[in-house]
């Protein structure tokens, strides 16, 4: 089996004193779609930022296509990022440009292609996400789902080897959600890329991904293929898959004794 595209080895990360990732090791094999799941605030997005080189790990190594991201200078990092695409939670489209110019942005910045060729490429990317007809609209005129599809077209403009998705399903209606899910899978296969999805939408992810990691309190607590996850007896995964309010992840934020707090006044 060939070397995975992304490999994290015992990665630790902290914002100041606050430990976010304690010891994470995982890998994304080439050609696969991998999901990272966990509750809100468990450090999922931080993982993407580490892989994209926006943050540097305190300990351990983050390897992308054999390169240690934490050790790259700005120029090498930018060279690497041209082969990565990241879809932000709400699309992060440039609001002062049309949909067309948004998708054309990476092409114009990084290539010397002729305007005619850029025009054709942009229309092809927009066609792939089903929004060729919206090319002249402005981001403000798009629905949430459409904005995310445009952002997806922009993300794949340079045919990246790695696609990263930060909560791609958040705040979408069921139809848009299904569309985005299918696009993630289809584009991954069409581009021959590898994808990493950070999400907490378990049902959608089980349908489209090849492998899932569960993260809690800065560690990988469970992992497996969708079939293994569905049939697991792991209490954490069970709570997550069945959306139970209480379990290994407690309902209550840590606090002192309830009765004492009520009688004694100060919590």
């Amino acid at each position, binding site marked *: 089996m060939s070397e995975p595209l992304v490999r994290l080895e015992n990665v630790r990360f902290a914002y100041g004193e606050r430990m976010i990732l304690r010891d994470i090791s995982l890998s994304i094999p080439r050609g696969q779609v991998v999901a990272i799941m966990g509750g809100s605030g468990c450090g999922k997005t931080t993982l993407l930022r580490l892989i994209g080189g*926006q943050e540097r790990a305190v300990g351990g190594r983050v390897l992308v296509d054999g390169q240690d991201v934490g050790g790259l200078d700005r120029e090498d990092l*930018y060279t690497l990022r041209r082969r990565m695409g990241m879809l932000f939670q709400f699309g*992060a489209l440039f609001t002062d440009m049309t949909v067309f110019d948004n998708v054309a942005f990476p092409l114009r910045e990084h290539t010397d292609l002729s305007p005619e060729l850029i025009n054709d490429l942009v229309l092809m990317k927009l066609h792939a996400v089903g929004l060729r007809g919206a090319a002249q609209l402005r981001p403000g005129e798009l629905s949430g789902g459409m904005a995310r599809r445009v952002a997806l077209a922009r993300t794949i403009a340079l045919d990246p080897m790695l696609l990263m998705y930060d909560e791609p399903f958040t705040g979408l209606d069921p139809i848009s959600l299904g569309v985005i899910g299918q696009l993630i899978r289809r584009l991954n296969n069409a581009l021959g890329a590898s994808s990493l999805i950070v999400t907490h939408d378990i049902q959608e992810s089980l349908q489209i991904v090849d492998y899932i990691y569960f993260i809690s309190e800065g560690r990988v607590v469970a992992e497996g293929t969708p079939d293994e996850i569905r049939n697991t007896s792991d209490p954490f995964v069970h709570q997550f898959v069945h959306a139970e309010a209480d379990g290994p992840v407690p309902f209550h934020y840590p606090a002192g004794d309830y009765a004492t707090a009520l009688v004694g006044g100060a919590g």
Partner: protein
Amino acid sequence: MGDVFRKLGSLAISGVWQLGFIARFFVLILRYSGQSFMRLHLTIRELYFSGVLSLLIILVSGLFVGLVLGLQGYEILQRYGSSEAMGTMVALSLLRELGPVVAGLLFASRAGSAVTAEIGLMKVTEQLKAMDMMAVNPIARVVAPRFWGGVVSMPLLAALFSTMGIFGGWLIGVVFIGVDDGAFWSQMRAAVDFRYDVLNGVFKSAVFGVAVALIAVFEGYDCVPTAEGVSRAITRTVVSSALAILALDFVMTSFMFRGL
């Protein structure tokens, strides 16, 4: 008592830190300016937004400041029987002080605040991060063009402000009050020195341009990415720009105009 000193100390330290951040940011802007000049249309676009769109408020304010200077100037000068010196008085006050300073203050509140808001909102909506992830440097693509747009606009706007002000003074003095037209202009020409008065004024407005543009882009780029953070950043832009303009003006005036 100890608390007061501690507070003062921490204020001073954070102020010095902030100055350091701004200075480093300034160096970064200069470093990536070359890249941003390769795409000159970006800077020209910002010239339009900062410069051309500020024209109305600058021209109207300049006119009114000139009108008021004319009225007040005449009222005082005619007591000493030298109302012909009106032109000199209006021109010197505008070219040396009021033009650069008032235009600078207006520019900070009209264009500086807009730049801060725009960059701040781009930060809130993750556009800057997205750009950075696309291997496009936001300082070269977003910050530097806005900075240079402000730096170039400011002296031009100050010059237009002074021009409108002198026109306003002429309107009041010559057209409405009836001061002699020839005396108004010839006294002005005799008293105003190109290097000493005009160039010093232009230099001042250029310095204000750098200060306001730098504060505006820095506050936007540095803001806390929330609605509240952006609103605070805009306030800080206007307040710090105004204070910077007044402080720099005092320093420059004390070096430039010492009565020879």
